């Protein structure tokens, strides 16, 4: 079973014959201290210690735009920051050791961890990781995408292997549906409608657990429903994007209520992303970029071209179809993850730090998030049509298949975005 690998260490990822090898940089300041926390398949969950966050480096954060909305997706790996050295220094975090029960067989405490490429579905680099061209072609050959995040947890780039399943005729249909106003609108609308339906679902779910404040929530639900109606009449993707944004703003205003007691420390004035202005915004930004990466990974296993999109404008440097799909899944994957983490107090105010006018998750906060995220993706639900259990992550793939069906037969088999049915 292939799985994503989440690497938090600094160091070098390289090819060693037919395996991948993570060569961890040792922490110069405190030799012997382990820079663990890499989440490799089958490994135990790294324990959070060290709530004390490193103090800020003084380099300017790179690419602070909300990655899920404006990801900079390039074919090349991340450039090393000029001030990488100082960041590395200030970012050195000692952490607990991670026990490991299976693959990779390498000791996580070692400096060099080999792991079989066959077990890697994708690789996330949250630390400062060097790659070379030999590795890039190796990953590409095995169809393993690489996602890079900067020191602040901003998504910076992905290394998307060469397309391997593209279908010429399907791409033609994708483009036809994009260039034809009416067809494009039909799809753009479906993405927004599904996104709003899922938002509504999340609101209902948490509202039913509230003891007070339900009136405000009911009102938000009504508002979102009316926006959804207007979306049905919207005349262009730009209007739809605007309506979606409007609905989200209304939705976010309910969060402090929905989060209840645990949310007291999490005020939320407005959505801000450049940079995130408060902890909730930091969580949303981080979660949204993970969601984008999941959509992109799933698209990679289909014949769809991820650059041709409907709701979002196709951009030259981003995979905008992944943004379209991510919109549908954010409520289930991101928003509910945030609620869970905050309500159970797994994420607390000390998991954030202020840096250069923005608020970011600390490294340990990111680990906590990723740990929950990974479990969440593997959570399953009984699928009504397939009559078997399907993981949350697989639901994204199924939506890509629905879109494929739509493109082949828009009248007989129209796309309806995934909507939570539970």
């Amino acid at each position, binding site marked *: 079973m292939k799985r994503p690998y989440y690497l938090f260490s600094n160091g070098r990822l390289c090819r060693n014959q037919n395996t991948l090898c993570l060569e961890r940089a040792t922490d110069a300041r405190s030799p012997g201290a382990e820079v663990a926390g890499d989440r490799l398949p089958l490994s135990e969950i790294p324990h959070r210690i060290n709530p004390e966050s490193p103090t800020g480096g003084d380099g300017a954060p790179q690419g602070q735009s909300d990655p899920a909305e404006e990801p900079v997706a390039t074919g090349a790996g991340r450039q090393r920051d000029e001030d990488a050295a100082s960041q590395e220094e200030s970012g050195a975090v000692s952490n607990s050791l991670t026990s490991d029960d299976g693959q990779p067989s390498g000791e996580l405490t070692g400096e060099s961890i080999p792991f079989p490429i066959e077990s890697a579905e994708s690789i996330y680099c949250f630390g400062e990781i060097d790659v070379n061209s030999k590795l890039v072609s190796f990953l590409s050959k095995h169809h393993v995408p690489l996602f890079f995040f900067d020191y602040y947890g901003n998504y910076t780039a992905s290394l998307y292997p060469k397309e391997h399943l593209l279908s010429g*005729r399907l791409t033609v249909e994708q483009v036809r549906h994009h260039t034809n106003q009416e067809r494009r609108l039909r799809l753009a609308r479906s993405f927004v409608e599904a996104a709003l339906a899922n938002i509504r679902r999340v609101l209902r779910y948490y509202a039913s657990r509230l003891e007070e404040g339900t009136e405000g929530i009911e009102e938000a639900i009504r508002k979102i429903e009316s926006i959804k109606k207007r979306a049905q009449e919207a005349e262009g993707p730009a209007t739809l994007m605007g309506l979606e944004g409007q609905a989200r703003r209304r939705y976010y205003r309910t969060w402090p209520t929905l989060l209840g007691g645990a949310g007291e420390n999490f005020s939320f004035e407005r959505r801000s992303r450049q940079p995130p202005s408060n902890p909730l915004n930091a969580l949303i930004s981080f979660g949204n970029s993970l969601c984008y990466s999941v959509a992109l990974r799933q698209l990679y296993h289909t014949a769809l071209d991820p650059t041709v999109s409907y709701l979002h404008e196709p951009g030259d440097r981003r995979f905008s179809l992944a943004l379209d799909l991510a919109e549908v899944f954010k409520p289930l994957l991101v928003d509910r993850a945030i609620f869970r983490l905050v309500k159970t107090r797994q994420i607390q105010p000390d998991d954030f730090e202020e840096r250069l006018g923005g608020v970011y998750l600390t490294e340990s906060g990111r680990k906590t998030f990723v740990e929950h995220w990974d479990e969440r993706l593997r959570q399953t639900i009984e699928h009504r049509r397939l009559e078997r259990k399907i993981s949350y992550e697989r639901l994204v793939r199924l939506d890509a298949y629905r879109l494929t069906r739509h493109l082949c037969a828009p009248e007989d088999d129209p796309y309806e975005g995934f909507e939570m049915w539970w």
Partner: protein
Amino acid sequence: MSAPNSAPPRSSFRVGGMLVGYYVLCPRKAWLSMRGLWMEQESTTVALGRQIDENSYEREQKEIMLTAEAPNGTPLIGKVDWARLDAGVLHETKKSPSAEEAHKWQLRFYLWLLALNEVTGPQGEPFAGELNYPKQRRTEDVRLTNAHTERLQEIVQSLQALSRQKSPPPRREERSFCQKCAFEELCYG
């Protein structure tokens, strides 16, 4: 054995053995596969199939490429698993007999390619086919009759029409059948 991975312009349209097998099972499956919308590469059952392919038999002759032209001019192509040329037998190895009908037609298709190339066994007799299911320790003899040849011609004709069809044929009705199909998520997800 590979089906063409997209339906190219008619000039490069070719029919392969697996595509014929797909068509017999479900025309929609054949259409999706012609469009390059199949996902078998990923499926573990296919990987397993390949392994069995590679390990189960000492091959006497492996992977023989065959080409021919159907009477209506369609180029045909086949990649035969293995053969015992001196005995005049073509073999096809499969993981499980769950789609036996398709396997039989795939093998008949190869026998047809040999016939079209006027290849015969050592005594001038037509080649025979043998389906092998090593996991079940089972073999199945497959012959090519005149009726089969006619049916194969029809199938090739239908595939050609199908390749020009813009939308896929409908799903098969029986869900139990689709539940075994590698395309299930693409059809029902």
